[in-house]
């Protein structure tokens, strides 16, 4: 560091008068910027609560229990979107979790050095691709493929009265709960895999080597040393992945079919809270319709807020 940095006042430093007064201005500006985080967080809760209040007042608990969502007769029950959100998010997590653990274990334990870095970087980059791109791919590529190669054959060969037949009943157009969950799983997979990899890399080499030295196979090292070592963080990251799946909007809106009834099978069309808001908010003409959508937003906020706080508490304790 040359001495010019301190002796010559830069343009930035001329903004703040020297002495304790300028110091105080700078400090309080920084403090206000930090406080803005708190204001934004509180603002989101208050704005959603105020905006959604008419709907909560008009429908009470029926808002959560009824699945009748009818803008024409002004009756709003949100059970369909709420259940749809939970089902798609958990299904996505179920599909993505084993794959994500597999990928990160492969990258940390088994992959040749030369390949490990490029694959890890590729996975991280793909976590950043916007959801609208995944959504378009789902709508134009995945949905037709799924309808043609999976839905049609199942519809033809499985009797609709059996247990399996009931699970796969639905319009064979590829826009359903399961394909939406698939897209969500593809979206959260790179994110979870890259954070898992970072977590696994924090396990000290001595610990792993000690286990290998006792004659453990790589499978045993992963199961009884590495995963227990990072357990808290692991659960935290799973929760973060769940939070992402819960709030993901565009990818789901493209492919879930957007009907408000309770889904009856895996291949039934449905909706999530986020997709309902994205689809209807700008077209909501009555006060009650936008209030109901804002109330839905508050429900989504509460669900994700809970999940995120748990995740952050679990991760924060470790580091």
């Amino acid at each position, binding site marked *: 560091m040359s001495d010019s940095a301190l002796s010559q006042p830069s343009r930035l430093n001329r903004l703040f008068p020297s002495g304790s007064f300028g110091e105080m201005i700078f400090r309080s500006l920084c403090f206000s910027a930090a406080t803005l985080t*708190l204001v934004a967080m509180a*603002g989101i809760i208050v704005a959603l609560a105020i905006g959604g209040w008419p709907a909560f007042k008009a429908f009470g608990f029926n808002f959560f229990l009824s699945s009748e969502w009818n803008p024409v007769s002004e009756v709003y029950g949100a059970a369909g979107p709420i259940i749809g959100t939970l089902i798609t998010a958990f299904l996505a997590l179920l599909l993505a979790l084993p794959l994500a653990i597999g990928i990160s274990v492969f990258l940390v334990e088994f992959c040749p050095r030369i390949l490990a870095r490029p694959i890890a970087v590729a996975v991280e980059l793909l976590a950043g691709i916007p959801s609208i791109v995944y959504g378009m791919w789902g709508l134009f590529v995945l949905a037709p493929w799924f309808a043609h190669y999976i839905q049609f054959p199942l519809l033809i060969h499985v009797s609709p009265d059996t247990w399996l037949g009931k699970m796969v009943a639905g319009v064979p157009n590829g826009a359903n709960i399961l394909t939406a969950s698939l897209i969500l799983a593809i979206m959260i997979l790179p994110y979870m895999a890259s954070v898992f990899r970072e977590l696994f890399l924090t396990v000290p080499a001595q610990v792993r080597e000690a286990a290998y030295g006792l004659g453990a196979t790589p499978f045993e090292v992963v199961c009884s040393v590495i995963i227990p070592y990072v357990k808290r963080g692991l659960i935290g990251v799973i929760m973060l992945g769940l939070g992402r799946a819960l709030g993901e909007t565009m990818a789901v809106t493209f492919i879930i079919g957007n009907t408000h009834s309770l889904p009856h099978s895996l291949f039934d069309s449905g909706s999530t809270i986020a997709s309902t808001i994205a689809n209807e908010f700008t077209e909501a003409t009555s006060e009650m319709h936008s209030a109901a959508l804002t109330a839905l937003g508050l429900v989504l906020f509460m669900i994700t807020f809970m999940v995120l706080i748990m995740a952050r508490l679990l991760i924060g304790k470790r580091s």
Partner: protein
Amino acid sequence: MSSNLKRRFINKVFVALCSLSTLLAVGMLALILGSLIVNGAGGLHLSVFTQDQPSPGMSGGLRNAIIGSIAMCVVAMIIAVVLGIMAGTWLSEYSRNSKYGQAIHFLNDVLLSVPSILVGLFVYEIMVRPFHGFSAFAGAVSLALLAMPIVTRTTYDMLQLQPNTLREAGMGLGASQGLVIRSIIWKAAAPGLLTGGLLGFARISGETAPLLFTALGNQFLTLNMTEPMGSLPTTIFQFAMSAYDDWRNLAWVGALLIAMAVLTINILGRVMTRGGKR
């Protein structure tokens, strides 16, 4: 002996499953990028950048959407970088483990992952509803709210990396704490701060949900921040959901452009952190 064989067998299966899942994921993601290029690259003419979005059946481009996206992202980034760096600086340099500082740090991490559509709803309630009109500025504010936690977090992390001896040396020369931060710490951490900005930029450049009911969208070119403004993601959404083939083709082109832009920004950010750490 047989239990040993069993252990080895289980291990083999485990290794195979791990390799398979990596292969599956890499293959799936290659498939997505591949279909993006196959469907999008064909329509990538100069007219995409020089003409505004067409009516169905007409020829046209995405100029208004691209310019709208850039305008809103730039305004959002100015807000987010200024506020985010200040907030991160306060957390790292001034809060010094106070209860309030820890609370803000925690809330910032939570805000980082709040669904973007809820941020859009929030900005609608505070900026669109009171003034009875959608505006590009409201869109920019919602994007800024999404980028700011990232900038704050990265700033905090990067400032924490600076050695305390640097701060003490500055103080020892008689500089005040603020002067030390502005003249020494920020300068030393500059590549990292820039990376934070780039990461935030990468996050918001593809955001769609919050723009749907803040900036709304506009089929004409405008630079007036008080009017509704088109953006690449909302135009893609509108075109992809439509029944017209030429609109759908333009949506693929738009998706390719956004994916490329986001990938480039992310790679730039990555290169810069590596330069900064060495």
